[in-house]
């Protein structure tokens, strides 16, 4: 290695580094970048953004639902989406990016019409989850984690524990549960999605698509786009969730009777 920069080397003129902090709290580069990003794609949801901010004692608490709202519009979190959140909350794009890149549910690349998440955590995997994930990958043309099928039907991911272990192995489509899956049943779900059908989740509401469900995640739970109030219906619980209560009922087991006078009086 030669050392070209000896004492005789000419001094470079001073340049303001790109990461210098300006008076508004962001970097000059960020502000320039934000100014250059077109956020008009979000004009249709500005009222919704205002409504989200109004839910909380402090505005910044709205950031997670706002990012879900961004995904409702664009199917992922784009640079424009980051700039939009920064505008609404009057924080820097760097602050929004830091949050958007931390959470698994915020996607950096456009998601297909549906998001298929297969649990491959230990318990589901021991009962077939790994095989299901492999079969789903293959059925969609050998794509991998967070990749989208060529026809745009589905993005797939291997998920961590989805809190349905008594119903293992599970997968979700657009975060709706499909319980007690097999390789065959999972492949059939994929085939149905590719045919443009909407297979019915085991619990939960009829499927819409990934973007619609992001509106629910932003807090607009009864919007027609996510099935309206009717979508709240469905079974109370999976049969497995009720097993203890049913067994107790059959055998006449109960908690001790509540005394006439409660303890708080």
């Amino acid at each position, binding site marked *: 290695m030669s050392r070209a920069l000896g004492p005789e080397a000419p001094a470079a003129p001073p340049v303001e580094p790109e990461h210098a902090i300006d008076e508004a709290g962001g970097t000059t580069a960020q502000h320039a970048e934000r100014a250059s990003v077109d956020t008009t794609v979000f004009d249709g949801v500005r009222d919704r953004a205002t409504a989200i901010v109004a839910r909380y004692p*402090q505005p910044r608490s709205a950031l997670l639902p706002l990012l879900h709202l961004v995904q409702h519009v664009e199917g992922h979190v784009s640079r424009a989406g980051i700039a939009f959140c920064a505008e609404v909350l009057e924080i820097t794009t760097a602050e929004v990016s830091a949050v958007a890149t*931390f959470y698994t549910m915020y996607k950096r690349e456009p998601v297909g019409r549906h998001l298929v998440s297969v649990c491959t955590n230990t318990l589901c995997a021991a009962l077939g989850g790994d095989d299901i994930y492999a079969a789903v990958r293959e059925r969609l043309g050998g794509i991998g984690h967070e990749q989208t099928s060529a026809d745009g039907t589905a993005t797939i991911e291997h998920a961590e*524990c989805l809190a349905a272990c008594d119903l293992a192995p599970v997968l979700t489509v657009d975060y709706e549960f499909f319980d007690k899956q097999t390789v065959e049943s999972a492949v059939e779900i994929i085939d149905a999605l590719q045919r443009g059908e909407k297979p019915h989740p085991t619990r939960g509401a009829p499927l819409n698509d990934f973007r619609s469900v992001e509106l629910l995640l932003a*807090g607009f739970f009864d919007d027609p786009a996510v099935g309206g109030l009717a979508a*709240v219906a469905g079974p*109370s619980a999976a049969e497995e969730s009720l097993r203890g209560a049913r067994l*107790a009922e059959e055998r006449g087991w109960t908690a001790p009777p509540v005394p006439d006078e409660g303890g708080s009086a």
Partner: protein
Amino acid sequence: MTDPLTPVLTKHWLGPESWTLRNYTELGGYEALRTALATPPDDLVALVKDSGLRGRGGAGFPTGMKWSFIPQAKPGETPTGPAAKPKYLVINADEGEPGTCKDVPLMMADPHSLIEGCIITSWAIRAHFCAIYVRGEVVHVLRRLHAAVREAYDAGHLGKDIHGSGFDLDIVVHAGAGAYICGEETALLDSLEGRRGQPRLKPPFPATAGLYAAPTVVNNVETIATVPSIVNGGKDWFRTMGRERSPGPKIYSLSGHVERPGQYEAPLGTTLRELLDLAGGMKDGIPLKFWTPGGSSTPLLTDEHLDVPLDFEGATEAGSMLGTTALMIFNETVSVPWAVMKWTEFYEHESCGKCTPCREGCYWLAGILRRMVDGEGTEADIDTLLDVCDNILGRSFCALGDGAVSPITSGIKYFRQEFVDLCALNAGQQRHPEVDRIVELSGASA
């Protein structure tokens, strides 16, 4: 003696459309709220303290004591410091501990018991804003919670001047975005403030500086959903179930190789033998090999521990922890090193990156375990694993790191031979010539 099963929360789930206000009210719902609003808040805190209710999210901290830590203004004095700030109630509904599946069915089948508990708790701690932080991946739970909150507003259980009490309360249902670490209470608070979900240094504790640096109670779903039953039944009734230091009923979640997996609400202190009996025994009669008492962060137990009373003390005395009473049950067909590798990959993915021992440690642990399971490990790897674990346990910022080492250290403790055998398989294999060359160059003895 109480019955083997004591459904208090789960019995609400049996009705048709159990999630509706109508069903909940028919079963006596919101009666506890009326009782509570006629009771001085301090008396409610004392009631919950005396009931012995302990947190159902894993740590088992006494709930009433947590509430009593919230600084309150003294009568006749102008409050200063934290007591002068607003108080907040935050519900940890970020259920994500591997194996844990009790809060999700509870909120799906019976959201109103949680909401009634939230209102009573908010009254007791004098909070006027409550957030229910739900993991994002369970959209139907979010739907049911949102709908139930709206029903509660419409019925006058929420909003301004609730039932003429002069008490105001708003509840917001807040969806997370996929981060296990947000189940850690201070990471949850940062996330709820619109930041990366990373844990905070404690102290200060949330009781004095929680949400927006104001006094905050963070409680688990099952804990708060239990509160209305204590208000209705009283502390002595609650203590008729469970054991002296761990009273009350508890939802045990059985999953894995059992005949009838599911939710079984039984008195605290019930054993795995008793639970297996209720769940029809091991699936297809294949013997039990290992299990977790409360999620993957609680050290593994074996068939030697079938009679351990599953309460906070019993699980600890057996060398594990009660955790979330998520019993993952594995039979003889499952390889311990493989299971441990899968869990470690989970912690590697979910480590938030804030502290070095957990971030780097989980990465290397997962790599070493993958190598072993791929048949390229050596016996020295077992000691390396334990050494790395020793540098994570107690040296991480939060309990995620401690949880990450649990499956490894307990797996090696009970099944060391299985790790050794896995490595012995390739001991006889010829070493790659490149390795020999490096050994020669470095002057190390082969």
